[in-house]
């Protein structure tokens, strides 16, 4: 009987822990939106993608984005070939766009403005370390893929337009604010096309 009581008590503790972990993950999100440092990641309008437009491609309900700041110059290729991920520390330029401050193999000790990114070195190129950020996929839940395709095709093919992803970062955690195409919020554009569709 005593053992059964012990088992029940232990099970209750474990069950609470099992609920607490996901709850904590959710509760940290608003805090992240408040306390994270905002960075604007410029979309690379010169980069070729799988589709006919530059800097992004649509895969399912995600827009895969290619950023301008996703490479770092390296001296020793062999040193970076052996690892698959690294810590990227960011800073801002005069216009508020994200710049890579440093890429390290160990966790930056006195900063919150970093994320862990996947790293790879091209076999032909021994001078650049390529970085793949965890926020390079933008999720468009309610939008029609055709509309999304037309928006990013018109916006990203023009290198004079300002396109960026606004992200709040705090110690490897991130919160995607918005995708800005040609200076206009992607969310607002989608809302606009939805309203137009209803009015018709």
């Amino acid at each position, binding site marked *: 009987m005593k053992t*059964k009581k012990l*088992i*029940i008590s*232990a*099970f209750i503790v*474990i*069950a609470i*822990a*099992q*609920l607490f*972990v*996901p709850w904590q*993950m*959710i509760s940290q*999100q608003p805090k992240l939106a408040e306390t994270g440092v905002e960075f604007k990641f410029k979309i690379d309008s010169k980069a070729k993608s799988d589709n006919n437009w530059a800097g992004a491609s649509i895969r399912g*309900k995600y827009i895969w984005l290619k950023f301008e700041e996703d490479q770092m110059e390296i001296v020793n290729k062999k040193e970076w070939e052996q690892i*698959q*991920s690294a810590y990227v520390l960011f800073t801002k330029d005069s216009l508020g766009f994200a710049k890579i401050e440093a890429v390290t193999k160990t*966790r930056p000790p006195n900063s919150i403005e970093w*994320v*862990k990114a996947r790293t790879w070195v091209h076999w032909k190129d021994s001078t650049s370390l390529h970085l793949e950020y*965890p*926020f390079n996929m933008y*999720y468009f*839940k309610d939008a029609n893929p055709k509309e999304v395709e037309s928006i990013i095709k018109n916006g990203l093919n023009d290198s004079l337009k300002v396109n960026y992803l606004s992200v709040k970062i705090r110690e*490897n*955690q*991130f*919160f*995607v604010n918005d995708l800005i195409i040609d200076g206009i919020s992607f969310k607002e554009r989608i809302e606009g096309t939805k309203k137009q569709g209803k009015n018709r």
Partner: protein
Amino acid sequence: MSLQKDLPELVGANIISSDTAQQITDYYKRKQTTSPNRQLLIFGILGALLVGTGVMFIVANQWDDLSQAVQTVCAFLLLIAAQLLCGYVILKKPDKKVWRESTALLLFFAVGANISLISQIYHINGEMSSFMLTWMLLTVPLIYLMDSSAVSLVYLFCVMVYSPAARYNLSYPFEEYLYWVLLLLPMPHYYNRFKKSPENILLIIHHWMVPFVLTMTLGYLSHGIKMLMYPAYMTMFGIFYMIGNSHSFRNRPLISNGYLLIGFLGTVISLLIMSFKSNWKDMAETNFHINNLIAAPEFICCLILFGLATVLLLQQNKTMKLTEWNLNNIVFILFLLIFIFATQDVQLAVILDNLLVFGLGLLMLRIGSKKSHLGVINTGMLVIALLVICRSFDTDLTFVVKGILFVLVGIGFFLANWLMIKKRNGNEN
């Protein structure tokens, strides 16, 4: 039960007494009530897996159309439902094995699914290793609280997946070694089950899962001195082979003795791999100075495994003379000697390794012949045939030599089987 049907006939023919017949009937009745229903257990576990997958597919169909709040509620409902089921089983059906195993398994997957869903719904960034670690730590108590071997099995498999994730995504120092701590956590349950119910089907699967997981993950200890992983693996396979040959496993059918089969196959395959000179090429570049070795994880792993293997070897052969020891049991020591030779002369090591494989094959032929066991004889022939196939890849042998070797092995196969069948027929007549 056919024997029970035949009992009246056996009593009638005065082969057994009516008392013995009664005792046999009582034994089967007792066995039926005490032993858990294996079929029900398997289908219970399969049912839990299928229901879980089915629910996920149904929800996934409309998932994108649900709001964030509804998605979150769905994710938590799944977890809470599994928890309530487990709670109900602990309170009301603690003795029902099928209920315990299937609900514990459902909760195990519900915890993983819940964390993944919350991460997906809120776009939370995370490492594969930290996800696996959280999932494993939150579910490992179920093995003991629900006394669940099914959870222990899937836990071991998931821990195996965690190992490379921790090895290559080092978020904090020594994260990769945490895998070994996680691997040890279900071992008291495994040992306990082994003592209490050695014939349990889930325990038998453990006898495969544990050596399989160790084989798949030992290599992740490899850092700077990769070559040391060969004696490490060889010693580990030696340990498996000795466990498979121990008193508790020796008389088991091969299907429930994963240690023996993985140990034997691992030893032969590793020896065959090392029979190629090209696989020793890194020996020249490796610095085996003691200062370099002392802190290397590969070296520490080798020492621990070698210590364990030696203890096992001495324990198993304490009543035997040195000359009576089985070659299969000391392959790891011989390979270690070959490895030490290789630090001086790789060519000699390659020759000795080839001789060792050939010796193993011959030994199996001898054992098979003594026991009149065709399976053992053919395994011995297969080991020799594999060695010949490996040597046929070596470019320094002419086609004629390669051809003669194949012909000889072919004749050997034919002769061994023919002689054995002839010997058996002679014994029967």
